């Protein structure tokens, strides 16, 4: 982390960048927030640890409008989003100085809480430089431990890899964290009966509070004005009626990002109700892979997306009914 801060200071000092987009230490051990640093002095609050899960690519949409270059710290998975945003002309490559930062898996405070750990005072083992396999957590109710792996975000268990897809320079080592099959959960649902599927999603989506966190954090949901916020479309609803609304919202949202979603997992990370929203996106990704050939959004910044492309031999929609 110190290397990162030093490099940021250098780049600020020599005028290469006008600001640094990174994370600022929070007031609890686990709540650093995305922040801009414009002076060397302000970098004293800069932090990069296991709780810096936020994907900063989306912040680059606004940062691209600012004067001068912005140094942005991107984890390997964040770089996919950045590529995709370049493809959609939403960020300006020239306005970004990308430092690819190492990642050893990001932590999910909810997973720690789920293990019954509460009253957290401090957490050690979350620093990026730590080699620790275990987190040691001091709480009001005594010292607790938790395996790093068990505290990791779902997305890190199906990590796309250590490689940064776009960067100006790299700082820090990354670690392989993948220990699960990306589509296993999707396949599990696919194997259910229609009744079970419906019950599963009904139960999950009934929790939705329409807070729009999933949408607002999503780098693919970068519309200036979302169709769900626009009075131009009859879809503008804030109701929470536990019938069709939420399903409609989430299906349409997933459809809108289909072929563009890099599976960065931010939606599931931020959902206050713990809805596994990635299951929608990943279903589309899986379908796209099977029907139209493997495709990873954000792999590059130029290729044609699967929904703006076609072949004469594409499968017919009846495949859905045929495969049962």
């Amino acid at each position, binding site marked *: 982390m110190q290397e990162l801060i030093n490099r940021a200071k250098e780049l600020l000092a020599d005028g290469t960048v006008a600001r640094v987009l990174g994370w600022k230490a929070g007031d609890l051990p686990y709540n650093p927030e995305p922040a801009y640093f414009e002076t060397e002095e302000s970098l004293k609050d800069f932090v990069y640890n296991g709780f810096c899960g936020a994907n900063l690519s989306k912040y680059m949409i606004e940062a691209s409008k600012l004067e001068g270059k912005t140094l942005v710290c991107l984890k390997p998975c964040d770089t996919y989003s950045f590529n995709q945003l370049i493809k959609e002309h939403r960020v300006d490559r020239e306005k970004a100085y990308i430092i690819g930062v190492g990642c050893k898996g990001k932590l999910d405070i909810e997973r720690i809480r789920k293990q019954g750990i509460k009253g957290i005072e401090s957490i050690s083992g979350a620093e990026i430089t730590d080699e620790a396999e275990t987190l040691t957590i001091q709480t009001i109710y005594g010292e607790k431990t938790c395996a790093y792996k068990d505290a990791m975000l779902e997305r890190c268990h199906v990590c796309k890899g250590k490689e940064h897809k776009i960067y100006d320079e790299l700082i820090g080592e990354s670690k392989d964290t993948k220990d699960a099959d990306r589509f296993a959960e*999707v396949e599990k*649902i*696919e194997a*259910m009966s*229609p*009744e*079970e*599927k*419906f*019950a*599963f*999603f*009904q139960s999950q989506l009934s929790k939705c509070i329409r807070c729009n966190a999933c949408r607002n954090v999503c780098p693919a949901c970068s519309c200036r004005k979302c*169709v769900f916020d626009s009075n131009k*479309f*009859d*879809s503008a609803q804030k109701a929470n*009626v536990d*019938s*069709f*609304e939420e*399903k*409609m919202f989430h*299906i*349409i949202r*997933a*459809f809108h990002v*289909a072929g563009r979603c890099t599976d960065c997992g931010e939606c599931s990370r931020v959902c206050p109700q713990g809805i596994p929203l990635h299951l*929608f996106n990943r*279903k*589309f990704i899986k*379908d*796209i892979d099977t*029907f*139209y050939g493997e495709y990873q959004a954000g792999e590059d910044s130029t290729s044609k997306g*699967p*929904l*703006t*492309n*076609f*072949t*004469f031999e*594409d*499968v*017919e*929609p*009846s*495949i*859905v*009914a045929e495969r049962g």
Partner: protein
Amino acid sequence: MSIETNEEFRPKIVAFCCNWCSYAGADLAGSSRLSYPADVKIIRVPCSCRVNPMFILRAFEKGADGVIMCGCHPGDCHYSTGNYYARRRMTLLFSMLDYIGVENGRTRVEWVSAAEGVKFSQTMNEFVEKIHSLGKNVRLEDLRCRS
């Protein structure tokens, strides 16, 4: 009892037809007097690629029991490529609906040329029959629409 309700069940079916092939195919079915149930109501769109998945979900939300989209045969699109995009969009949408537990017979895509009045009528007959076997759409309907 259940048989009785089945007889009373008149499904609401929305058919999106592209102007150039399938709407003309429906016209041909009409001028050839090839009947299909009155439950099918056709909405004319310029091309199957004009059909937004949102329209289909909207129809279900508002109580439709089945939605079918017809377009020109692949390769025959009046706009060359429209139905190819539509095909991908609908494949993914249908797959998603299936995934969330909506019976996959409620949606269908059929390519109907302007010369295929017979196919149009046959398709509609089949589709209505299928919807009859599935019964009323309860999984996607917005309950508010019942009041």
